[in-house]
């Protein structure tokens, strides 16, 4: 019973159910093969491919915890990918040298950081609604990315760059270690310092936390900077994966998938309490769902229907009215066989009341 009460129970249950359905439908799903000391298989692919979404959702979790939302992450991804590949592709540089790639990544992530700071400025200093403040960059950012690449899809062949997306470290994909590292970094900063608690305070009641002496402006600003920076890294990984900077396709709809993953992980869009572990589970669920749909042979273009059904189911399960229905059905059910297990019923009744 305590396990069921844990707030990560339902998100985790959803993920496990999804994986079980896959394994039952196709036993090959769970098969992991070892080749040259490296692991391959559908599950490993999920770990590898979830890197961009994971980074974006991580930043989104922090922003949502402050009662905000960051719609610009997809555009920031497009910009950072365009910046990185334009630097690597420039005639004076050698695409296969590690130095060039590192400089390109650093510059791209710094640009993303500035874009995040811009969002944070609009929201925390000017006090503009987060949806509309980040909408500005969402519209303008993709246009700017197209200008950086001159409207073309810049392609590069760079070994160090493609290592980021498809290389292996020890036995697991390098991209997995990238997102794991950032999950740990963000987790430690938020949960081992007071920052996480202060973020939740700002999200739960901005006015009260201000009166209590919390500097909400700095905290909100930091959240948007983190979101922008992480989206920048995600953009580089995405570009490394397809070996191209595609300003139109990079991060397309990723803001919506990231928000979905955060909500699946149990963080409320109303701000306040957030769960980084929940977000990790949410992202893996979204990615697993994506693979499942592909696995079932549905054209990828039609997959939004499944996501729509999932979103509707998730929000229905979370909605108070369905909870009430569930309780009244449960209460009636218990009432009918109430005499049979009389000793335990008061306890249950208490739960119902709760």
């Amino acid at each position, binding site marked *: 019973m305590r396990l069921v009460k844990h707030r990560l129970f339902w998100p985790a249950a959803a993920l496990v159910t999804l994986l079980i359905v896959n394994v039952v439908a196709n036993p090959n799903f769970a098969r992991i093969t070892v080749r040259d000391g490296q692991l391959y298989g559908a599950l490993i692919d999920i770990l590898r491919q979830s890197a961009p979404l994971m980074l974006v959702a991580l930043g989104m979790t922090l922003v949502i915890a402050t009662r905000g939302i960051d719609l610009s992450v997809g555009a920031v991804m497009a910009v950072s990918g365009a910046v990185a590949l334009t630097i690597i592709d420039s005639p004076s540089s050698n695409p296969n040298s590690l130095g060039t790639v590192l400089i390109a990544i650093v510059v791209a992530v710094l640009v993303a950081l500035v874009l995040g700071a811009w969002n944070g400025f609009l929201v925390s200093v000017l006090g503009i609604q987060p949806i*509309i403040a980040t*909408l500005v960059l969402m*519209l*303008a950012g993709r*246009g700017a990315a197209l200008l950086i690449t001159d409207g073309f899809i810049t392609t590069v062949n760079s070994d160090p760059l493609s290592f980021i997306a498809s290389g292996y470290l020890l036995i697991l994909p390098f991209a997995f270690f990238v997102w794991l590292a950032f999950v740990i970094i963000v987790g430690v900063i938020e949960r081992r310092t007071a920052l996480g608690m202060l973020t939740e305070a700002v999200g739960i009641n901005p006015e009260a936390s201000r009166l209590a002496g919390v500097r909400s402006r700095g905290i909100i600003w930091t959240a948007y900077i983190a979101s922008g920076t992480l989206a920048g890294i995600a953009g580089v990984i995405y570009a490394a994966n397809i070996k191209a900077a595609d300003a139109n396709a990079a991060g397309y709809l990723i803001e919506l998938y990231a928000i979905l993953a955060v909500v699946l992980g149990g963080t409320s*869009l109303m701000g306040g309490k957030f769960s980084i572990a929940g977000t990790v589970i949410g992202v893996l669920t979204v990615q697993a769902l994506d693979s499942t749909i592909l696995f079932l042979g549905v054209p990828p*273009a*039609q*997959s939004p*229907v499944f996501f729509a059904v999932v979103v509707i189911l998730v929000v229905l399960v979370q909605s108070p009215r369905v909870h009430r229905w569930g309780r009244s059905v449960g209460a009636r059910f218990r009432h009918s066989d109430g005499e049979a297990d009389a000793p335990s019923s008061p306890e249950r009744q208490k739960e119902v009341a709760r």
Partner: protein
Amino acid sequence: MTAMETAAPAKKGLGERVGTFTNRHASVLPTFAAIAILILLLVGAELYFGNFLTPRNMSALLLDNAYLMILAVGMTFVIVTAGIDLSVGSVMAFTGIFGASLLSSGVPAVITIPVMLVSGALIGLLIGVLVQHFNVQPFIASLAGLFLGRGLAFVVSLSSIRVEDPVVLWLQSTRIRIGDWYITPTGILALLAVAVGAVVMHKTRFGRTVYAVGGSEQSARLMGLKVPRTKVMVYVISGLCGGLAGLVLTAYSGAGYPRNGIGTELDVIAIVVIGGTLLTGGRGYVLGSMIGVFVYGTIKTIISFMGAEQSWTHIIVGLLLLLFIVVQRAIVARSERGS
């Protein structure tokens, strides 16, 4: 405005009058600003190109943006109730491709067109019910609508379907000419949508309830207004407008295409905000949204006149959006201080 205030002592009569006017009509100011920007754009473009303000060009402005105008009308209703509808672009794509596929399988237009409108309204109804009766945030509920519409569009067809139905093509090909000016039935539909929207918004009980809900939902409820019904209705209206826009766009392009309208929802939100509607709800005008569409369309035309990349459109619309929200922010802050 600050400049006006400081200048007030010197020219008291005019300054004071302007001050009173801006205070009393604070909610119309963003719309006036949009009109000013539109005039500025048109005059500037005419001076720069010399052949911009031609009847043909201006007629094309309405023709090319008819579907946006219809979507903007529905979105205005939603945003005035402090909601948001992200689904409009994909609802338009779905109804468009659905209609095209019905027509190509021999269903007459008399049946197809109502079916398109109803299917748009049904997605709107789904969003409205989720928002009102299941307490889902409009953002998330309409996100589900977005996914649903886009996915269903691809379920209907993965590629575009040509439309050869004479009735639907008539909507686009007929040109009612007055001198060099012309208007197509799609343009008339768009203007009709604006007119009906404006009348409903300002002259009916429903319209007043929409404003009341946006101003303060709790007050509206305590006043005994039909809040739940109104909140569901605005999403149905937006879905209906999505269906109508699907029809207009299908007629315009002569085909249904499941990739139509990707990102259109954000353009429409930007247009509505530029037209002077506050995202916090309670203030906004359907006619303002029409001005917003013209501003957007004019920027697009100017950019294609200059032969520049169309990606500039979004950069400039983004900057305009920024300008407007900062101005709105200032107005709201001012009126809060004033009251």
